[in-house]
């Protein structure tokens, strides 16, 4: 019978000390919606649970002087979609926050936890990538920052070294005339894991795309920043032809596997379709409207 330890530090420094002491046997506990399930199902062997929720920096959601937003790693999903400024500013992130698990899960599950779980299908990760979010990491050697697209390294793995802790994410202030959207494909209509997820962010000058980022989930060992798709869109008119070009690039970039949740062929096709739909939604939001193509 495995005895476990629970720690609830109140400072980042204390948390780092505990993590450093216990190494890979310790895990940060935010909402616990992944961690506790994994431990119960014997999918992860964790001896020390370090509660994130007593550390103010990890629970912070605030707008900085330069207009960027600091999102504490343990802030639960429900807080995001109940925050009018956040929802208006980073709509793709709240698109994801609204569809993770159920309402009850969203009361506990955090964006930072979703990122640290580093599942290829993590719903909040493509939206963070398209919003150019940056991870603020603290560890025994101090602070460092890593772009979200560089954070995950393999299924369930990321750049955090033993003793390191994701404190928060910084999301830059989006420029005027921009919009974003995230959507996923699931065989059912709720309570499921993305077969493919796609996020898109567009900045428009009139009808012309001046900047764009797209990202995919569940089609590679890590959430995938499809930089070439966004780059190709710059300078193009934001229309179906342009979106088809970007969608084609996304489909080619996807390297999915066959598993119980989907097939390679289906995931390739979904990479195309969902990128197209995400771009349509991002365009609608950039123009002050809202996406119409639902799931």
């Amino acid at each position, binding site marked *: *019978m495995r005895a476990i330890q629970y720690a609830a530090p109140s400072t980042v420094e204390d948390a780092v000390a505990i993590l450093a002491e216990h190494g890979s046997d310790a895990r940060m506990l935010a909402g616990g919606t992944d961690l506790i399930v994994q431990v119960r199902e014997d999918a992860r062997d964790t001896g020390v649970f370090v509660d994130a929720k007593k550390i103010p920096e990890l629970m912070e959601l605030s707008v900085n002087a330069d207009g960027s937003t600091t999102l504490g790693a343990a802030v639960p999903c429900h807080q995001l979609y109940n925050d009018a400024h956040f929802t208006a500013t980073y709509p793709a992130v709240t698109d994801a926050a609204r569809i993770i698990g159920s309402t009850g899960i969203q009361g506990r599950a955090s964006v930072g936890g979703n990122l640290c779980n580093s599942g290829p299908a993590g719903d909040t990760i493509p939206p963070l990538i398209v919003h150019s979010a940056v991870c603020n990491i603290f560890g025994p050697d101090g602070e460092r920052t890593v772009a979200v697209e560089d954070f995950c390294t393999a299924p369930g793995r990321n750049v955090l070294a033993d003793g390191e802790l994701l404190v928060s994410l910084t999301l830059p202030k989006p420029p005027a005339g921009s919009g974003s959207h995230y959507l996923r494909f699931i065989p*059912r209509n709720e309570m499921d894991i993305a077969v493919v997820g796609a996020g898109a962010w567009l900045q428009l000058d009139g009808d012309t795309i001046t900047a764009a980022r797209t990202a995919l989930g569940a089609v590679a060992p890590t959430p995938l920043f499809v930089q070439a798709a966004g780059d190709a869109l710059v300078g193009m008119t934001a229309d179906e032809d342009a979106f088809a070009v970007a969608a084609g690039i996304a489909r080619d970039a996807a390297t999915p596997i066959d598993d*119980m949740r989907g097939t390679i062929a289906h995931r390739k096709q979904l990479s195309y379709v969902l990128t197209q739909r995400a771009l349509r939604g991002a365009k609608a939001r950039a123009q002050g409207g809202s996406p119409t193509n639902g799931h």
Partner: protein
Amino acid sequence: MAIDTRVAPKIKHHDEEYKVIGTRPIRHDGLEKVTGEARYGSDINLPGQLHGKVLRSPHAHARIVSIDASRAEALHGVSAVITSADLPDPGDKLTTGGEAPGLPVKFKSANMLARGKVHYHGHAVAAVAATNQHIAAEALKLIDVEYEVLDPVLEVWDAMKPDAPVIIEDLYTAKADGTTADEPSNVAAEMLYEVGDVDAGFAEADLVVDREFTFGVVHQGYIETHNATANWLKDGHLHVWCSSQGAFTIRQELADLLNHPITKIHVVPMEIGGGFGGKTTAYLEPLAALLSQQTGHPVKMAMDRADVLKATGPTPGGYVRVKMGVTNDGMITAGYANLAFDAGGYPGSVVGAGCRCVFAPYNMPNAKVEGFDVVVNKPKTHAYRAPGATHAEFASETVVDEICRTLDIDPVEFRLKNSAKEGDWQLAQPPYPRIGHIECMEAARDSAQWQTPLETAPGKKRGRGIASGFWFNIGFTSSVIAKLNSDGSVTLLEGSTDIGGTRTSVAMQFAETLGIAIEDVDPIVADTDSVGQTDVTGGSRVTFATGLAAHNAANDMKDQIAEGLADLWDVAADAITHADGTFSANGNSATVREAAGLLEEEGVFPIGKNTVTPTREGGAFAVHIADVEVDEETGKVEILRYTAVQDAGVAIYPPYVEGQMQGGVVQGVGWALNEEYVYDDDGHLLNASLLDYRMPTALDVPNIETIIVEVPNPGHPYGVRGVGEVPIVPPPAAVANAIHDATGLRMSHLPMSPPRVQAALAAQA
């Protein structure tokens, strides 16, 4: 929010008016269940109780070279470890209870704890009892099992090949002609049903459609996982509390598996959180009993969801071929079907039932149906709501739809023209009694959905499909004991475990017959010591058969009350009349309540009882209509609207009938669109969780419109037909036919999941 108080339409084909039957009283078990007071298996906790857990095979097919439990036994807190060596050798005994009697007990025994070989991923290999669940779980990790891994065989078409690895080395096919094969194989049994001259029938046909269909394995998906608590006393009495569809069946299986006298086994059926055919057999009960016997303590066991999906009995995957011939004016001339179902790791699939249903909705004078029961390296399969019928009729109703399209005949007209009716041929059975397929089809035709053209939407692929379904229902044995209390109320002990609300539907028939209010009947689901023999709750039999027993017991009580009053009133018992709940003779009269008081003073307490094994169960028909929208880009199918029509005979408690219809549709839609076991090439089940075994959620099905048709069953005093199973039969075909209407695709595999639909759309383009 407005509460929908709409009462769904009911179409009566009889003139009977009842006082209790057909009303909507408060169900007897309702308050207990909504307040959480109802007691389920996991609520049992006994002093000194130990906790048991099962070690399961990580391989689909392997020889067990050795099992060394010494490290587990040495762990502090572990009281016992058992393997198949602790189960008695069953010899050549055959099973008796359950839905499929007559199978060798040795197979059931080996399925409880693997004997020499594991036959599927998740197969039980050993079990431990310890002072708590955590120690038990730890002990499992300390049991050292050495396996010699063998090649698995996963699909029936592979298992039937002559060079396939043989899973059970001494399994010789029981052939349809009564002979036995000379060489062992994976085919446990062949069956053949034939009527008329099928070759002549096909020769008469202007159009022959011949199609093949395949099926993934699906699970019943009951919410409550299996559990059992056993207490083996020093005098040999064994008490078992469990979640089962049949307490008497569990008692019989325990007697068979443990070589223990049936009189010493006492099984208490707890409230049950769903079964759908999957709780008709023992899994944990014999293990808990053995562990209790060895430790001298009560032992409690419960499965988690992964155990349930891996190691209980899902319903088979397999293969169905259907060939039908018709004339140009749309009359069926012949049908041929070939069904091969996977039995799982041991013989005994539901293929025979599928054979009986495949052409059942139609008057088909020439037909031949072949069935094959095939052992593969998957969990031993079991019944699931109209077992076998859904596979079979998915195939035949898809072929019927194709015939209608090809000949440009309206699918309702075609089915009305060819419908089976009273006196027509029924496969391997006496001719049909009065049945309601035509009435259901007419009700479907006249329904709001069928009469409303499908709304089109730009850029959307929408379609409508219709399909029939049949399930034969079963009778089996049922018992009730009714005690008249001094205040005129009745305590009704009935032997059927209550899954679908049957304690109320049985009590209503008792109240109707005796002429008392339903509130005056207190129905109790009794244990095996307290009521007569009662077979499993299955085959949609309880409201029919146990209801009949209740009706007979009410008549028995009526006679006893009349005899008591006869003494008091000084008349002959047969001079006393009974009408509307009042006994009268010679100017005397007494209601049941008054009679109970009068008899109490005389020391007379009537007990009505009955045990019955009825055989005239009638058959159940359903007709369903599905409107769907297919996302051409993703292959996802949405159900837009759904109507279910069903002949209930007479609906005793209409809300339960509607609930069964809607529940069957939900499960059928899940089967149609997403549910399936996913295996890797080595036979590992990859999706043993409700995350990845995708049953529909509340957002995946629309409100299901129900229309109850009442064509009374002549084989029952109140006309009851079983209602629980047939509503799962039509949905996959109705959805498939709607997908065809929307896209032109003919899907030939269940489930019609998004990757499959998308791949088919891509191939079409």
